[in-house]
């Protein structure tokens, strides 16, 4: 531990937030890589837009109607399923690190089977409701 400046650096970089400062730095590097690539592209490329070139691609014929066309989203039910289960799954992570700590053991194991039972029940329910088949 030398001068005051060195101490200050350590305090920032070794703390809990210090590691996320590095994550932010890498994120900035990533953004810079993408920006640099696009900038190089801008310097090297020609730019000769024509109305034909800028039309929406639809296998060579003129586009019919709008691109944001209405369509039936068949998998919206999966979205509900996902939201329900993903919220459950998030609780798994903190639990996973402590479940076999001294003093827990058997009771957490039983709890885990209750949890698995709930998820399995949900999937069986979706199955019986024919959510997983399309026609």
């Amino acid at each position, binding site marked *: 531990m030398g001068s005051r400046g060195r101490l200050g650096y350590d305090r920032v*970089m070794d703390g*809990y937030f210090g*590691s996320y400062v*590095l*994550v932010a730095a*890498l*994120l900035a*590097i*990533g*953004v810079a*890589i*993408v*920006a640099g*690539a*696009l900038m*190089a*592209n*801008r310097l*090297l*490329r*020609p*730019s000769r837009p024509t109305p034909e*070139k*800028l*039309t*929406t*691609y*639809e*296998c060579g014929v003129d*586009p019919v109607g*709008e*691109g*944001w066309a209405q*369509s039936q*989203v068949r*998998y919206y039910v*999966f979205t509900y*399923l*996902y939201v329900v*289960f*993903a919220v459950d*799954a998030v609780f*798994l*992570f903190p639990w*996973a*690190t*402590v*479940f076999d700590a001294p003093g827990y053991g*058997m009771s*957490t*194991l039983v709890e885990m*089977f209750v949890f*698995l039972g709930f*998820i*399995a029940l949900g*999937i069986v329910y*979706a*199955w019986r409701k024919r959510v*997983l*088949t399309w026609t």
Partner: protein
Amino acid sequence: MLDVVLSFAVILIVFLALPLIIGQTEHKVMAHMQSRLGPMYAGGFHGWAQLIADGVKFAQKEDVIPAAADRRIFMIAPGVALVPYLVVLIAIPIDRGRVAVDLDLGLFFVLAVMGVGVLGSIMAGWASANKYSVLGGMRSAAQLMSYELPLVLAASSVAMAAGTLSLPGIVEAWQWWWLPWQAIGGVVFFLAGLAELRRPPFDMPIAESEIIMGPMTEYTGMRFALFMLSEYAGIVVLSFLTTVLFLGGWHGPFLPGWLWTLIKVFVLAFVVIWLRVSYPRLREDQLQKLAWAGLVPLALVQLALTGVVKVLI
């Protein structure tokens, strides 16, 4: 400080060089599996410079943004697809003590950031204002929904086994008998990861012969190249994660640890290529069914197995 600079340099090399090496390997391996030669001219020796030539071509191509597109979202989508895969690498250990940042929440962080990458293709699909792209974007979204759950469940099984969420901590705790113990979880994790990358046989959202690359239909030049790079960076990240979580990372006899990590990563990348050549594309409903009726129950079985073994032994 020097440590940080060094580990960032390693991350950048991994991020920029490995995808190209895997891409070239894919060219050649696919070609030979299909009794072709693959690229043979660029660079002279067995077409080794093919991807560099591709890059030079991409850099010079005109950047066409369709008049109907949502310009700003259309322009940033490739970046959103690519950058998360770089950020993920910060938490992945290459050798004992060789990790840029040992995050307490490593596993959670990695899964969360990887999920962001898929947003890129959903954004691209919607912003292109193209029917194929919208379909592709929707399919990407559906695929993310379905395969995120088995991915998370399989990953948390490893967290249970190791009792920590830190990736170096998990590798440190790893022992050889975890291979059979966590085998189901490993397969589920790898397949679900492949599906999140939309690699064949899970490439319904891209399906070039049906919806013409889906979200990427309208992209050209550099932006298209960034999407391609993100696909291969995704393979690198998925292979690294599977190695670290299920194959014991740097553990292995005789050779140095970082080399073991790299060998395992390349073997997994080879499997990714192999699967592409071997299996036909799954239909959209088959994809959903595989996730909900196949991988999720398997992941639950793995969780039960992990819990029972961990508590009783």
